[in-house]
């Protein structure tokens, strides 16, 4: 300051410096810098393009392979429920009728198809009885039996039944089964394919939206056409509820304590490091932990959503704690000063001012944690959720203890089965899983926009 007031006279008058080239011509250093910048931009665009191509490829293959799971072929022919077969005692007693095996209904179906062929003058050279039997899904006769048992008045009548065709017939309409593949496949034949073509022409085969895929439980290896993701979706939903109910309050409370109340000392440093470590622990390790702690030690049932939910909670907690702490840190300290300055207690400061401002970050972190948990497979395999579950769990809270599956596990499960029809289901389940994840991320964006406040 003193220098400035004393020395103005000492500053030499500026002499015009010799010109070092025109502004109109870029010098070498500038050209080099501009080139480097252009290169860097090109790298960036290239990186984005590679990411986009990978995404498009992923979506394309999944949708190509999985779209078929949402369509299903049904046989729609009149079936005569002959009283001799379904009610051999002739007394219409449901208890007696329940003794008739599903296999007998299969014979009715086979007869109905033979009748239909005769009525429509369809004749196929070399069509065997096995081809006719294999035309229907194993599920078809069971469905017919349930229909009759539910309404004994149908006995002796002719009904228009719409039942599942076998996966081979279904595959024919999806391009999976051709004459060439039929020649190598013991479960189908070119005669069966010819029959299917003829039936389609006459309108006895219909392909329509497959709502059973959404609602059915898993099915055995022999009937992929009946398999659905209903139990897996419900199991995933139960687990997400458990994760939300446990991980959100525990995670938020832990981060509020660590961030706003805990003294900063060696212990809290240790805890902080360990939380970060926990976030990096491979998920399969959590599976082993869940197996040891919840099933072996606490004696909770295997394959149950409660155990899956607890394991996923442990896995999600670090994510929620880390993102919540980041959100709390991002709230300007001046807000805390302001609240403390008017005599608010620490808790009032946190709950009235800090937490509402941190809410968008907390919610986003929670939903991203949930989305991660939704897609997690490895720990669930270890706690038995990979088991074949063909019955729905009951409503919560008891249902949390019932065996269930989970979406990603179902994908894994189907992908390991031999029948190509299961591969299609697997891709279909991936589509459903991706739709759920997309919805959750959209919800996260929506909540962030809604709660975001400026100051």
């Amino acid at each position, binding site marked *: 300051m003193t220098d400035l007031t004393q020395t103005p006279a000492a500053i030499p008058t500026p002499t015009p410096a010799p010109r070092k080239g025109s502004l109109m011509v870029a010098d070498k250093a500038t050209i080099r810098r501009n080139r480097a910048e252009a290169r860097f931009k090109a790298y960036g665009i290239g990186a984005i393009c590679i990411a986009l191509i990978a995404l498009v490829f992923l979506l394309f293959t999944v949708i190509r392979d999985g779209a078929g799971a949402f369509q299903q072929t049904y046989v729609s022919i009149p079936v005569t429920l002959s009283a001799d077969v379904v009610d051999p005692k002739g007394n219409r007693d449901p208890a007696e009728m329940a003794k008739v095996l599903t296999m007998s209904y299969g014979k009715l179906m086979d007869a109905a198809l033979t009748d239909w062929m005769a009525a429509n003058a369809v004749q196929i050279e070399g069509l065997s009885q096995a081809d006719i039997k294999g035309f229907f899904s194993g599920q078809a006769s069971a469905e017919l039996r349930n229909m009759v048992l539910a309404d004994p008045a149908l006995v002796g009548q002719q009904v228009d039944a719409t039942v599942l065709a076998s996966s081979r017939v279904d595959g024919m309409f999806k391009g999976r089964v051709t004459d060439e593949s039929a020649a190598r496949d013991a479960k189908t034949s070119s005669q069966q394919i010819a029959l299917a073509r003829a039936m389609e022409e006459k309108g006895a085969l219909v392909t329509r939206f497959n709502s059973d895929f959404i609602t059915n439980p898993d099915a055995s290896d022999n009937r992929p056409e009946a398999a659905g993701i209903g139990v897996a979706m419900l199991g995933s939903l139960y687990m997400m509820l458990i994760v939300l109910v446990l991980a959100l309050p525990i995670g938020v409370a832990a981060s509020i304590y660590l961030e706003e109340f805990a003294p900063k000392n060696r212990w809290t440093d240790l805890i902080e490091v360990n939380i970060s470590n926990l976030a990096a622990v491979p998920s399969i390790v959590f599976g082993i932990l869940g197996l040891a702690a919840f099933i072996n030690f606490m004696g909770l049932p295997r394959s149950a959503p409660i155990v899956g939910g607890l394991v996923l909670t442990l896995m999600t907690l670090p994510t929620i704690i880390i993102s919540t702490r980041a959100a709390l840190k991002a709230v300007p300290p001046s807000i805390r*000063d302001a*609240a*403390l300055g*008017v005599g608010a207690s620490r808790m009032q400061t946190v709950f*009235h001012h800090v937490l509402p401002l941190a809410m968008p970050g907390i919610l986003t972190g929670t939903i991203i944690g949930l989305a991660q948990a939704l897609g997690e497979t490895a720990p669930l395999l270890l706690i038995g959720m990979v088991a074949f579950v063909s019955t729905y769990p009951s409503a919560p809270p008891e249902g949390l203890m019932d065996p269930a599956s989970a979406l990603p596990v179902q994908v894994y499960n189907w992908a390991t089965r031999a029948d190509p029809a299961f591969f299609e289901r697997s891709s279909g389940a991936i589509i459903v899983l991706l739709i759920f994840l997309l919805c959750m991320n959209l919800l996260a964006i929506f909540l962030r926009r809604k709660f975001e406040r400026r*100051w």
Partner: protein
Amino acid sequence: MMNTMRLAEKAVAEETIKITARDVQVWYGDKHAIKDVNVDILANTVTAFIGPSGCGKSTFLRCINRMNDTIDICRVEGRIALDGEDVYDRRVDPVQLRAKVGMVFQKPNPFPKSIYDNVAYGPRIHGLARNRADLDAIVEKSLRGAALWNEVKDRLSEPGTGLSGGQQQRLCIARAVATQPEVLLMDEPCSALDPIATGQVEELIDQLKTQFSVVIVTHSMQQAARVSQKTAFFHLGNLVEYGDTDDIFTRPQDPRTESYISGRIG
């Protein structure tokens, strides 16, 4: 003319001691930030703390309402008494203390809520209003007290963060006033404001001293001279000189004070 006016005012101000500080020491970790500060702050008086950056004036201010409690590494020793009661006594709840000793900060920091809720927050958490009408009255009185009422009375439900900088700072003053404190601490309240807003806030401070004991930290010596009756000069953690503002600025006793006031250090 200003001087004679201030002298006249000083004569009427009752010379009761509001805050007593004795041998106050503050450490930040190993750093001795405040050394042996002894000062008596009077009621219904504006006391200015001046000094170069990092001299401890803000630190000392934050000791008075125990805002330093929020800093883990900060340690306070000595005695600071409000009306003869030690504020660092074990029985004192800092929350209760801060209701009595309000604070306005350097940067205007309204809550991201409506103007009304900003002012009503303190009375609400301290249960000062029995019903909505009471609360309305407190809000209006506080906003009038902060000379902001006429500007915001038609938009009380709009966010406080949407006001201009000077208005925001007056809103913060209204918020502090609304809890009916006895002492108002101001930490460089005008450093983020333009000259016009500064003038408004200074005028306000002059009015506030009729109800409170005001302690203001400022970097501007002109401001200290304009608004305060008492001035304390801090340097490197020491309270170098404390006395009537006129004496400090016209007849400083300590050479360091003189150097600072004349602009040679700082």
